[in-house]
Protein backbone atom coordinates (compact mmCIF):
# COMPACT_ATOMS: atom_id res chain seq x y z
CA UNK A 1 0.00 0.00 0.00
CA UNK A 2 1.09 3.50 -0.74
CA UNK A 3 -0.37 6.83 0.24
CA UNK A 4 1.27 8.50 -2.77
CA UNK A 5 -0.97 9.93 -5.46
CA UNK A 6 -0.61 8.39 -8.97
CA UNK A 7 1.12 11.59 -10.09
CA UNK A 8 3.67 11.39 -7.28
CA UNK A 9 4.43 7.78 -8.18
CA UNK A 10 4.79 8.64 -11.86
CA UNK A 11 7.19 11.46 -11.06
CA UNK A 12 9.29 9.39 -8.70
CA UNK A 13 9.58 6.13 -10.60
CA UNK A 14 9.68 4.46 -13.94
CA UNK A 15 10.97 4.94 -17.43
CA UNK A 16 9.86 8.56 -17.68
CA UNK A 17 13.30 9.58 -16.32
CA UNK A 18 16.55 8.60 -18.00
CA UNK A 19 15.01 6.07 -20.43
CA UNK A 20 13.77 8.80 -22.73
CA UNK A 21 17.17 10.50 -22.71
CA UNK A 22 18.87 7.27 -23.85
CA UNK A 23 16.39 6.68 -26.67
CA UNK A 24 16.47 10.34 -27.74
CA UNK A 25 20.26 10.70 -27.75
CA UNK A 26 20.56 7.55 -29.85
CA UNK A 27 18.36 9.25 -32.50
CA UNK A 28 20.11 12.62 -32.21
CA UNK A 29 23.55 11.05 -32.68
CA UNK A 30 22.15 8.94 -35.55
CA UNK A 31 20.93 12.06 -37.37
CA UNK A 32 24.31 13.77 -36.78
CA UNK A 33 26.19 10.73 -38.08
CA UNK A 34 24.42 10.67 -41.46
CA UNK A 35 26.21 13.77 -42.86
CA UNK A 36 29.37 13.36 -40.73
CA UNK A 37 30.07 9.76 -41.76
CA UNK A 38 29.31 10.45 -45.44
CA UNK A 39 31.64 13.47 -45.35
CA UNK A 40 34.38 11.27 -43.83
CA UNK A 41 33.96 8.62 -46.53
CA UNK A 42 34.01 11.12 -49.40
CA UNK A 43 36.99 12.94 -47.85
CA UNK A 44 38.95 9.67 -47.56
CA UNK A 45 38.22 8.89 -51.21
CA UNK A 46 39.51 12.33 -52.17
CA UNK A 47 42.78 12.02 -50.22
CA UNK A 48 46.01 12.06 -52.24
CA UNK A 49 47.22 8.71 -50.95
CA UNK A 50 47.58 7.53 -47.37
CA UNK A 51 51.19 8.54 -46.62
CA UNK A 52 51.51 9.88 -43.08
CA UNK A 53 52.47 13.37 -44.27
CA UNK A 54 49.42 13.65 -46.54
CA UNK A 55 47.09 12.35 -43.82
CA UNK A 56 48.41 14.64 -41.07
CA UNK A 57 48.33 17.65 -43.44
CA UNK A 58 44.67 16.87 -44.13
CA UNK A 59 43.79 16.39 -40.44
CA UNK A 60 45.62 19.61 -39.52
CA UNK A 61 43.22 21.72 -41.63
CA UNK A 62 40.81 23.44 -39.20
CA UNK A 63 37.65 22.32 -41.01
CA UNK A 64 38.86 18.71 -41.11
CA UNK A 65 39.88 18.72 -37.45
CA UNK A 66 36.53 20.15 -36.29
CA UNK A 67 34.47 17.73 -38.42
CA UNK A 68 36.62 14.79 -37.26
CA UNK A 69 36.10 15.79 -33.61
CA UNK A 70 32.33 15.98 -34.19
CA UNK A 71 32.42 12.61 -35.98
CA UNK A 72 34.36 10.91 -33.17
CA UNK A 73 32.07 12.41 -30.52
CA UNK A 74 28.82 11.39 -32.21
CA UNK A 75 30.21 8.00 -33.29
CA UNK A 76 31.52 6.92 -29.89
CA UNK A 77 28.40 8.19 -28.08
CA UNK A 78 26.12 6.37 -30.56
CA UNK A 79 28.26 3.22 -30.32
CA UNK A 80 28.13 3.25 -26.52
CA UNK A 81 24.34 3.67 -26.40
CA UNK A 82 23.82 0.86 -28.93
CA UNK A 83 26.25 -1.56 -27.29
CA UNK A 84 24.67 -0.86 -23.90
CA UNK A 85 21.21 -1.89 -25.19
CA UNK A 86 22.59 -5.11 -26.69
CA UNK A 87 24.32 -6.03 -23.41
CA UNK A 88 21.19 -5.25 -21.38
CA UNK A 89 19.10 -7.43 -23.71
CA UNK A 90 21.30 -10.52 -23.74
CA UNK A 91 23.10 -10.64 -20.38
CA UNK A 92 22.11 -10.56 -16.73
CA UNK A 93 23.49 -10.48 -13.20
CA UNK A 94 27.18 -9.92 -12.60
CA UNK A 95 28.04 -10.49 -16.28
CA UNK A 96 25.82 -7.56 -17.24
CA UNK A 97 27.32 -5.20 -14.66
CA UNK A 98 30.93 -6.11 -15.49
CA UNK A 99 30.37 -5.94 -19.27
CA UNK A 100 28.64 -2.56 -19.00
CA UNK A 101 31.54 -1.12 -17.00
CA UNK A 102 34.16 -2.56 -19.39
CA UNK A 103 32.25 -1.26 -22.43
CA UNK A 104 32.04 2.20 -20.86
CA UNK A 105 35.80 2.22 -20.14
CA UNK A 106 36.60 1.14 -23.71
CA UNK A 107 34.37 3.80 -25.26
CA UNK A 108 35.78 6.60 -23.10
CA UNK A 109 39.34 5.42 -23.85
CA UNK A 110 38.69 5.30 -27.61
CA UNK A 111 37.11 8.78 -27.57
CA UNK A 112 39.95 10.32 -25.54
CA UNK A 113 42.62 8.64 -27.70
CA UNK A 114 41.01 9.77 -30.97
CA UNK A 115 40.35 13.34 -29.76
CA UNK A 116 43.89 13.63 -28.40
CA UNK A 117 45.36 12.37 -31.69
CA UNK A 118 43.30 14.84 -33.76
CA UNK A 119 44.23 17.80 -31.51
CA UNK A 120 47.92 16.85 -31.43
CA UNK A 121 48.04 16.78 -35.24
CA UNK A 122 45.86 19.88 -35.61
CA UNK A 123 48.02 21.96 -33.27
CA UNK A 124 51.06 20.99 -35.28
CA UNK A 125 52.99 19.09 -32.65
CA UNK A 126 52.96 15.81 -34.55
CA UNK A 127 56.41 14.69 -35.74
Amino acid at each position, binding site marked *: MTIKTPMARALGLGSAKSGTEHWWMQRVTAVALVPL*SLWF*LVALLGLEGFEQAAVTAW*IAQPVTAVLLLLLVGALVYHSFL*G*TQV*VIEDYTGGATRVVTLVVIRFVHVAVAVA*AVFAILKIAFGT*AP
Partner: protein
Amino acid sequence: MDNTNRPLSPHIGVYRWLITSTLSILHRATGLALSVSTLLLAAWLLGAATGAGAYQAVIGFIVSPVGLLILVGASYAFFFHLANGIRHLFWDAGMGFEMEQARASGWSVVAVSILATLILWALVIASGS
Protein backbone atom coordinates in the same frame (compact mmCIF):
# COMPACT_ATOMS: atom_id res chain seq x y z
CA MET B 1 8.26 -22.69 -6.32
CA ASP B 2 6.17 -25.21 -8.25
CA ASN B 3 5.86 -23.09 -11.34
CA THR B 4 7.90 -25.06 -13.88
CA ASN B 5 4.82 -25.51 -16.08
CA ARG B 6 4.61 -21.85 -16.87
CA PRO B 7 4.11 -21.11 -20.55
CA LEU B 8 7.34 -20.30 -22.34
CA SER B 9 7.81 -17.94 -25.25
CA PRO B 10 8.17 -19.85 -28.52
CA HIS B 11 11.70 -20.80 -29.54
CA ILE B 12 13.21 -18.77 -32.35
CA GLY B 13 13.09 -21.86 -34.59
CA VAL B 14 9.28 -21.82 -34.90
CA TYR B 15 9.13 -18.47 -36.65
CA ARG B 16 9.07 -18.38 -40.43
CA TRP B 17 11.69 -16.31 -42.24
CA LEU B 18 10.82 -12.63 -42.67
CA ILE B 19 12.79 -9.82 -44.30
CA THR B 20 11.78 -7.45 -41.48
CA SER B 21 13.06 -9.62 -38.61
CA THR B 22 16.24 -10.48 -40.54
CA LEU B 23 17.07 -6.81 -41.10
CA SER B 24 16.27 -6.07 -37.45
CA ILE B 25 18.91 -8.47 -36.12
CA LEU B 26 21.34 -7.47 -38.89
CA HIS B 27 21.01 -3.86 -37.73
CA ARG B 28 22.34 -4.96 -34.33
CA ALA B 29 25.07 -7.13 -35.85
CA THR B 30 26.31 -4.39 -38.19
CA GLY B 31 26.13 -1.86 -35.34
CA LEU B 32 28.37 -4.03 -33.16
CA ALA B 33 30.73 -4.64 -36.10
CA LEU B 34 31.00 -0.87 -36.63
CA SER B 35 31.67 -0.36 -32.91
CA VAL B 36 34.63 -2.74 -33.21
CA SER B 37 35.73 -1.00 -36.44
CA THR B 38 35.87 2.29 -34.51
CA LEU B 39 38.94 0.82 -32.75
CA LEU B 40 40.66 0.76 -36.16
CA LEU B 41 39.73 4.41 -36.78
CA ALA B 42 41.16 5.40 -33.40
CA ALA B 43 44.32 3.35 -34.08
CA TRP B 44 44.73 5.07 -37.45
CA LEU B 45 44.40 8.57 -35.90
CA LEU B 46 46.67 7.68 -32.98
CA GLY B 47 49.24 6.17 -35.35
CA ALA B 48 49.25 9.34 -37.46
CA ALA B 49 49.78 11.43 -34.31
CA THR B 50 52.48 9.17 -32.86
CA GLY B 51 55.04 8.87 -35.66
CA ALA B 52 56.21 7.10 -38.79
CA GLY B 53 56.80 3.71 -37.14
CA ALA B 54 53.41 3.56 -35.43
CA TYR B 55 51.63 4.83 -38.54
CA GLN B 56 53.30 2.24 -40.77
CA ALA B 57 52.30 -0.50 -38.31
CA VAL B 58 48.62 0.53 -38.55
CA ILE B 59 48.71 0.90 -42.35
CA GLY B 60 50.55 -2.42 -42.60
CA PHE B 61 47.72 -4.13 -40.74
CA ILE B 62 45.03 -2.38 -42.80
CA VAL B 63 46.52 -3.43 -46.16
CA SER B 64 47.11 -7.02 -44.98
CA PRO B 65 44.56 -9.62 -46.21
CA VAL B 66 42.88 -9.67 -42.76
CA GLY B 67 42.84 -5.87 -42.63
CA LEU B 68 41.32 -5.56 -46.10
CA LEU B 69 38.69 -8.17 -45.24
CA ILE B 70 37.79 -6.12 -42.13
CA LEU B 71 37.67 -2.94 -44.24
CA VAL B 72 35.37 -4.49 -46.88
CA GLY B 73 33.14 -5.94 -44.15
CA ALA B 74 33.09 -2.63 -42.27
CA SER B 75 32.16 -0.75 -45.45
CA TYR B 76 29.19 -3.06 -46.06
CA ALA B 77 28.20 -2.83 -42.37
CA PHE B 78 28.43 0.96 -42.66
CA PHE B 79 26.15 1.23 -45.70
CA PHE B 80 23.69 -1.28 -44.26
CA HIS B 81 23.53 0.44 -40.86
CA LEU B 82 23.25 3.85 -42.55
CA ALA B 83 20.42 2.83 -44.90
CA ASN B 84 18.54 0.79 -42.31
CA GLY B 85 19.14 3.50 -39.71
CA ILE B 86 17.43 6.04 -41.98
CA ARG B 87 14.58 3.50 -42.34
CA HIS B 88 14.36 3.42 -38.52
CA LEU B 89 14.32 7.23 -38.33
CA PHE B 90 11.33 7.31 -40.71
CA TRP B 91 9.54 4.83 -38.43
CA ASP B 92 10.40 7.06 -35.44
CA ALA B 93 8.67 9.88 -37.32
CA GLY B 94 5.61 7.63 -37.73
CA MET B 95 6.07 6.89 -41.43
CA GLY B 96 6.25 3.63 -43.38
CA PHE B 97 4.59 1.31 -40.89
CA GLU B 98 2.32 -0.56 -43.35
CA MET B 99 3.62 -4.13 -43.85
CA GLU B 100 3.90 -3.60 -47.60
CA GLN B 101 5.96 -0.42 -47.04
CA ALA B 102 8.15 -2.05 -44.39
CA ARG B 103 8.95 -4.95 -46.72
CA ALA B 104 9.64 -2.65 -49.66
CA SER B 105 11.91 -0.34 -47.62
CA GLY B 106 13.66 -3.44 -46.25
CA TRP B 107 14.51 -4.77 -49.69
CA SER B 108 15.64 -1.27 -50.73
CA VAL B 109 18.08 -1.31 -47.79
CA VAL B 110 19.49 -4.64 -49.04
CA ALA B 111 19.84 -3.31 -52.60
CA VAL B 112 21.31 0.08 -51.61
CA SER B 113 23.85 -1.39 -49.17
CA ILE B 114 25.16 -3.96 -51.67
CA LEU B 115 25.23 -1.43 -54.52
CA ALA B 116 26.97 1.26 -52.44
CA THR B 117 29.64 -1.21 -51.27
CA LEU B 118 30.33 -2.31 -54.86
CA ILE B 119 30.55 1.31 -56.08
CA LEU B 120 32.86 2.28 -53.20
CA TRP B 121 35.34 -0.51 -53.90
CA ALA B 122 35.14 0.08 -57.66
CA LEU B 123 36.18 3.69 -56.93
CA VAL B 124 38.97 2.55 -54.60
CA ILE B 125 40.33 0.07 -57.17
CA ALA B 126 40.00 2.66 -59.96
CA SER B 127 42.02 5.17 -57.91
CA GLY B 128 44.79 2.62 -57.69
CA SER B 129 45.39 2.70 -53.93
